[in-house]
């Protein structure tokens, strides 16, 4: 569950990224965040894993106000939220296996369970056979699937993706989207910022459209609504 109340974000350089955002995303929802570049999509999403904190207003993640949590507690929040990025953000020196295991080592899971769970999620994203590869030896789509495996490894209630298909060709993008659909089907809340008209229009979900730091449209089974 994600809730925002009158959220404002002004960066140090004076840019206003969010200008009074209110929203409520219920557990298990699948939400696209769309809008032109610079509309505040990324800032909106960064609020959810406390990459940025609001200048004004409240952000509740699973009923915890992340705007006021202590710096020490931020890692705990991040563990309850799986995050996926356009540029994958894998640890380049670690193998696929090690990258996924990292998310579980962080929560001090016991080593036996880590081994079991890592192979489980790698199997789920179809990369069990590439566990010993390093990211550079994989295609973009495969790297993104590793990132997804890492994001869901410790069963987070919320998965957030910032333009996860931005660097991928259409076919690979659909493979990723099918994975997201599966993740969503298992009851996980999924928030995804995207520029892909194709995906939004074909895989109908709730759409939140942003412009100039505000939510200008919020509809279930919505359309992309922008010219590409």
């Amino acid at each position, binding site marked *: 569950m994600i809730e925002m109340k009158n959220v404002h974000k002004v960066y140090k350089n004076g840019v206003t990224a969010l200008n009074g955002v209110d929203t409520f995303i219920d557990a298990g929802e699948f939400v696209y965040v769309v809008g032109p570049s610079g509309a505040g999509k990324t800032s909106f999403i960064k609020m959810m*894993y406390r*990459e940025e904190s609001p200048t004004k207003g409240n952000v509740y993640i699973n009923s915890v106000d992340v705007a006021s949590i202590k710096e*020490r507690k931020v*890692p*705990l*929040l*991040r*563990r309850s939220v799986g*995050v996926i990025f356009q540029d994958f*953000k*894998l*640890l*380049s*020196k*670690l193998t696929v296996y090690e990258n996924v295991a*990292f*998310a579980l*080592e*962080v*929560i*001090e899971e*016991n*080593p036996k369970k880590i081994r079991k769970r890592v192979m489980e999620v790698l199997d789920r994203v179809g990369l069990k056979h590439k566990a010993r590869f390093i990211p550079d030896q994989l295609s973009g789509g495969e790297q993104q699937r590793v990132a997804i495996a*890492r994001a869901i490894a410790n069963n987070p209630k919320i998965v957030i993706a910032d333009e996860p298909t931005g660097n991928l060709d259409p076919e690979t993008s659909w493979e990723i989207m099918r994975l997201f659909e599966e993740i969503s089907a298992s009851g996980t809340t999924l928030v995804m910022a995207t520029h892909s008209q194709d995906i939004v229009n074909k895989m109908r979900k709730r759409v939140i459209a942003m412009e100039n730091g505000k939510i200008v449209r919020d509809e279930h089974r919505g359309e992309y609504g922008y010219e590409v």
Partner: protein
Amino acid sequence: MAMKFSTFRRHIREGTKNIVRNSWMTVASVGAVTTTLVLVAAFLILILNLNQVVDNIENDVEVRVYIDLQAEEEEIEELGDQIAGLNNVESFYFQSKEEELEMLIEDLGEDGEAWELFEQDNPLNNVYVVNTERAEDLSGVASRIETFENIEDVSYRSDVVDRLLDFNQYARIIGGVFVAALLFTAIFLISNTIKMTITARSTEISIMKLVGAKNNFIRWPFFVEGTLTGVLGTIIPIGLVLGGYHYLYTNLNDRIDFPFIELLPWDPFAWQLSLMLLGIGAFIGIWGSVMSVRKFLKV
């Protein structure tokens, strides 16, 4: 919350793996530590041996107080009390003229036999031999003793002492320059390596934080890696110390004729120095890695 043992093992494992994963960085860091420690070792060998030489000479120099031949026993004792009352006197002892003659004969070897004739009618003086706390005090003590009564002459090896003091001063200046150059080199090398590490590691650290790693969780493997890097950097310097100093000690010591110049014995000096290098190496490694992580953990 206490760290689980499995997590501790994980940190050791990851830290060790990082040595291999970041092979170039490892080579650069180990190289920096190695260079620094070779210099430190050379410098320490030089300075500690010089210290030893200065100590030896300082123990050798003394003020000799020749007592007037006419002096009565009581007057000699009184003179002893006066010397005892002086500042900066570490110790002194009385040496009779018979003992003096004996030493002279011994010192001269075969030529000394001629002096044996004098045993019947000894022309030498009774002597007080005075040791001062420091070599610098010699001339002051000597000139004050000269003002006492019943004295024929006061002498000390002023040439040796003056040269020693000069030498000591030069050694200090050169030592100071050495220290400065060494520190500068070390700081430059290490900070450079840290800079390289920082740029390479900043992305890595930010990703770890995004996945929910606490600062300490990130720090530990770096700490392990730093320690190992530092220790790896001590291998060559310690090898050089153990081997090189052994060579120096066996070959050089015999060729030096001055009685007061003697190198510190290989055992235990080389071992002690090696242990010290190990400590410094580990410290540099830990310090370097902790510093390089610190900056990025604040974000």
